[in-house]
């Protein structure tokens, strides 16, 4: 099956109102900028977004929040977004906060075909409310279910026409995990090459997890906290 699409609009053509969608990235690092722009363009409504963060007011998932396209956010940290906070406090937006490692591992579990995991994160806290607790080796663990999403939007550095992906530096973060958890996984890449050009030894995500791939354009790659040291 042909996996290569011309652009984001074509690759996201069948994303529907009310869909559950995962977005790779940590902060604004490694986010699927082209997919987000295409969702804004389409105006897809009532999205349930699973993403570590909610972007900033005018970038990343913040752009979806601005247009009120998000019904529910499932994240670990949502610090830097005033519009997010406004919608949350006014009750327009539903939010589920979960520990970062739990979020990552629930995605991984889906991609590994495991229905649930046990993690100690959140034991004894409000995160544990209503969850099954099991004791292994005298330590308590919470049962957390695998995540699945209708769509996973992934940003990689390089990809090939078979959907194999290579990520760059800390832009890897949640991307390979969410790639494994999407019923339909759509990857945007900075560089798209013919099959055979990526060294199979270096592939991070095998193409079996990737259903659609396209070459992204106009990457802004905004830096959230530009921090430098002075030449001394």
């Amino acid at each position, binding site marked *: 099956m042909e996996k290569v699409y011309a652009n984001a609009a074509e690759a996201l053509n069948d994303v529907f109102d009310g869909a559950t969608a995962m977005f790779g990235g*940590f*902060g*604004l*690092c*490694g986010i699927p900028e082209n997919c987000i722009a295409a969702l804004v363009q389409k105006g897809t409504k009532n999205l349930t977004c699973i993403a*570590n963060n909610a972007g900033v007011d005018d970038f990343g998932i913040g752009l979806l929040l601005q247009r009120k396209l998000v019904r529910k956010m499932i*994240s*670990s*940290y*949502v*610090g830097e977004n005033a519009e997010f*906070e406004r919608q*949350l406090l006014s009750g327009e937006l539903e*939010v589920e*906060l979960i*520990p*970062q*490692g*739990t*979020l*990552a*591992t629930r*995605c*991984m579990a889906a991609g590994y075909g495991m229905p649930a995991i046990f*993690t*100690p*994160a*959140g*034991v*004894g*806290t*409000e*995160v544990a409310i209503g969850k099954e607790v099991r004791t292994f080796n005298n330590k308590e663990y919470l049962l957390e279910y695998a995540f699945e999403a209708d769509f996973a939007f992934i940003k990689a*550095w390089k990809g090939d026409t078979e959907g194999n992906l290579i*990520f*760059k*530096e*800390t*832009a*890897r*973060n*949640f*991307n*390979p*995990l969410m790639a494994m958890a999407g019923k339909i996984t759509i990857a945007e890449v900075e560089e798209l090459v013919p099959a055979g050009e990526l060294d199979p030894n270096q592939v*991070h995500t095998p193409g079996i997890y990737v259903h659609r791939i396209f070459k992204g354009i106009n990457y802004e*790659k*905004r*830096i*959230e*906290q*530009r*921090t*430098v*040291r*002075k*030449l001394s």
Partner: protein
Amino acid sequence: MLDKNQIAQRLAKELKDGYYVNLGIGIPTLVANYIPENIKVVLQSENGLLGMGPFPFEGQEDPDLINAGKQTITTVAGSSFFDSAMSFGMIRAGKVDLTILGAMEVSDTGDIANWKIPGKMVKGMGGAMDLVASAKNIIVAMMHTNPKGESKLLPHCVLPLTGIGCVKKIVTDLAVLDITPAGFRLMERAPGVSVKEIIAKTAGRLIVDHEIPEMQL
């Protein structure tokens, strides 16, 4: 009384050669500036990097290379990148030797609260719950009292918990304290700070069972 940099300087004395260390946001991040030259530690950033280097020089910033505080950073010789599941995997599996993080409250049984103020702050726990649930050695870096002058070392946390019975040691602007089954045990006092002042500003159970030396920075 110590300032934030001096707290970081005191914390750096907890580092040992060969340690893999996770430093939280705020005061803990400053610890990286005081790593003794005769030891080697590897800094873990939970967004997916082992071997975190200093901030880049101006013009060398790379948007694909950030730390857990979303700051631009660099790598060092021997660095490696990995995904978020592996990152928390190595934390959960106890491979990271030391975690230093900030807190809003710590109880005398080692409970910690640092992620939520109901009705006021709803930013989320990020990786803090995973870190405190799994790390074998957790040190809290914080001010001894809040801006209102109320003790942050309590009999029980009032704010929503991040983790239970996990903190091993606290370094504040006033003191170094261990967490023991009998409560906070005073180990060191900051230069110029009296034991009396520490007692007055510690709301939880406090044990003072020996001569308390002044901190060496």
